[in-house]
């Protein structure tokens, strides 16, 4: 009779065993290798790295595999690992003008210095299921550049570590300091005075770090941007959509520029005093321009919303830049903020690890609170109803 609350320990152990079995699935199907996930589910890896706040393709792939492809769960796994890592230092600000561009588009000028580069995008694909992909990776739509290495052949999972090494080596080749400089489109607007001045960037002031300090309101822009960069893609996406539909925008935003590519990460070791390169990461950046506010003066200037992600997460970067704009714009006095403009609402509810935990904690036992509610309700019914509660088991309330 006490079964419901007894035996938790054995139940948990058994649940873990069953989970491992379900995760592996049918044994006749080959096991997924991390390299396969990192290479062929690259956009999932990018999202997990971005919201997990850790740039490591291999660990992100591992998290996705361990979470059976549940990306929010994978993000949680990566975050919980990240939190145990020592903080060695801060990098120099990324110089995205020196990006090795894979994709770069602007929606506000037909031609831009450095040129528009369409790059790999789903934008103009027809969303027709490509049944040729059902086969063994022999798609009619484009072959991998390095066909000899990858065509059809799936490396055994245990070779994945080596493949990561090989991929890294491959990346080393072809990196050159002679990357073309793609000056930001926004510079042109800025020179004309059409772009709202950003507050002076004070490099002496330490950058806020949400993973070490709790969120404090009102948040400075560094903290806000860090929050949005870690934020759940779906949440930001819906907020951005609501703003565009009129809940808080009131004017049309324009994509100044979206760029995807690789940038160099530099640090200044104290003993050297000058920056050295420690590696390259792939990022997506989005610059959104909109009228800076609703008043007459503010409407003569553009304000800049910024989005940044690891890897290629274009939808997230755009949504982030839109929400950044909403939080930044000068509001007309006397108007209640729309959801996307409400800093506290947005920043407190954006994190999917926090949200998922709190929503799902309702699965945990609440017998005690529920019992307290039952006792109170039955007492209330006894007091007010002509018909007493179904049984005479009602409680007696006694003063303390």
């Amino acid at each position: 009779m006490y079964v419901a609350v007894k035996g938790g320990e054995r139940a948990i152990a058994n649940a873990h065993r069953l989970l491992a079995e379900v995760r592996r699935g049918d044994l006749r199907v080959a096991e997924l290798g991390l390299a396969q996930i990192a290479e062929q589910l690259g956009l999932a890896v990018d999202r997990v790295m971005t919201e997990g706040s850790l740039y490591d393709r291999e660990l992100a792939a591992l998290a996705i595999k361990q979470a059976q492809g549940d990306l929010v769960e994978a993000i949680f796994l990566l975050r919980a690992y990240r939190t145990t890592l020592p903080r060695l230092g801060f990098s120099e600000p990324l110089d995205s003008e020196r990006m090795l561009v894979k994709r770069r588009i602007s929606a506000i000028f037909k031609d831009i210095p450095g040129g528009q580069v369409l790059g790999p995008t789903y934008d103009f694909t027809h969303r027709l299921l490509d049944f040729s992909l059902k086969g063994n990776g022999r798609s009619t739509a484009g072959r991998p550049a390095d066909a000899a290495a990858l065509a059809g052949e799936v490396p055994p999972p245990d070779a994945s570590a080596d493949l990561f090494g090989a991929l890294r080596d491959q990346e080393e080749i072809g990196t050159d300091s002679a990357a073309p400089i793609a000056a930001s489109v926004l510079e042109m607007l800025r020179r004309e005075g059409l772009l709202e001045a950003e507050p002076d960037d004070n490099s002496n002031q330490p950058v806020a770090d949400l993973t070490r300090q709790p969120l404090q309101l009102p948040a400075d822009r560094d903290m806000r941007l860090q929050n949005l960069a870690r934020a759940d893609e779906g949440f930001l996406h819906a907020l951005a959509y609501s703003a565009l539909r009129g809940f808080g925008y009131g004017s049309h935003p324009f994509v100044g520029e979206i760029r995807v590519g690789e940038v160099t990460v530099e640090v200044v070791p104290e003993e050297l005093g000058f920056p050295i390169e420690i590696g390259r990461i792939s990022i997506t950046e989005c610059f959104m321009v909109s009228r800076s506010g609703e008043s007459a003066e503010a409407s003569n200037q553009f304000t800049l919303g910024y989005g940044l992600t690891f890897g290629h997460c274009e939808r997230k970067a755009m949504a982030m830049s839109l929400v950044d704009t909403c939080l930044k714009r000068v509001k007309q006095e006397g108007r209640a903020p729309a959801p996307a403009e409400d800093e506290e609402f947005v920043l407190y509810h954006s994190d999917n690890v926090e949200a998922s935990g709190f929503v799902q904690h309702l699965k945990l036992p609440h017998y005690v609170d529920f019992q307290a509610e039952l006792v109170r309700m039955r007492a209330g019914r006894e007091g007010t109803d002509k018909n007493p509660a179904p049984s005479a088991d009602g409680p007696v309330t006694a003063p303390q």
Partner: protein
Amino acid sequence: MTETGMEGYNFAYLDEQTKRMIRRAILKAVAIPGHQVPFGSREMPLPYGWGTGGIQLTASILGADDVLKVIDQGADDTSNAVSIRGFFARTAGIKTTTKTRQATIIQTRHRIPETPLREGQIIVYQVPIPEPLRFLEPSEPQTRRAHALAEYGLMYVKLYEDISRNGHIATAFDYPVMVHRRYLMSPSPIPKFDNPKMDRMPALQLFGAGREKRIYAVPPYTRVKSLGFEDFPFQVERWRECCAICGSRESFLDEVIVDDRGARIFVCSDTDYCSERCEPIHSGSQAAPLREHLAAIEREGQACKRPVQFSK
């Protein structure tokens, strides 16, 4: 401190820098009873909502000699309590217990043990929403201001409205308390039945909210008063029934449905308290009537209105 625990991880999982940061927050919290101290809450390997605030507190104060008890809903064997106890047994290699009397640290969700705590013990509460005013005022800057000014009229109005609508205060758990006549505090979602135990408790009470990134505390022997009015004083719930297993009339009872027709019995939510009361029976000559009694309940599924009769 001996370095026992899990390979590749520090004692009790958190690194020493983080523990130091949390201990500083605890000291501040103890110095200002009932005041919520923001802290740099870390992502833990358990989800937010599962007690990450309590886990971080426990990890920061745990020493190699400590004996840990973890309860959820008053019970040591609910799955989340088992999981958290396992986490510390694994990462810190410390001794664990289910006995309230033997524990030096008790981490709890939703209950305070029935057995009175003593000096030197620490009880760590897991807190989902640390702000007692949150459902009256959703904005954090606003509620912080209210605390700074000790402006708690909002809560009294809410309690008053309860009375005018229902004839009684309709809060059954997470019933707000005033700490040391200064700070309004959420006791965490314990039933109001447990509130009186917090008042001048000899043990140190620590509260951790991981997702909300707040720590607060009630030092030993601090006055904790549940809100009420002169004509509508604070009251706790009582049951007509007693525990079907140990016969207690003093403890908080859980309702257990025992058959398809909705027959039910009431048993202690605090499993350690209940089994401690039963121990002499289990081991002695009175084990037989107890077994018979329990078998009868299982067989007939009858709601038990009186405890098993033991000859004293």
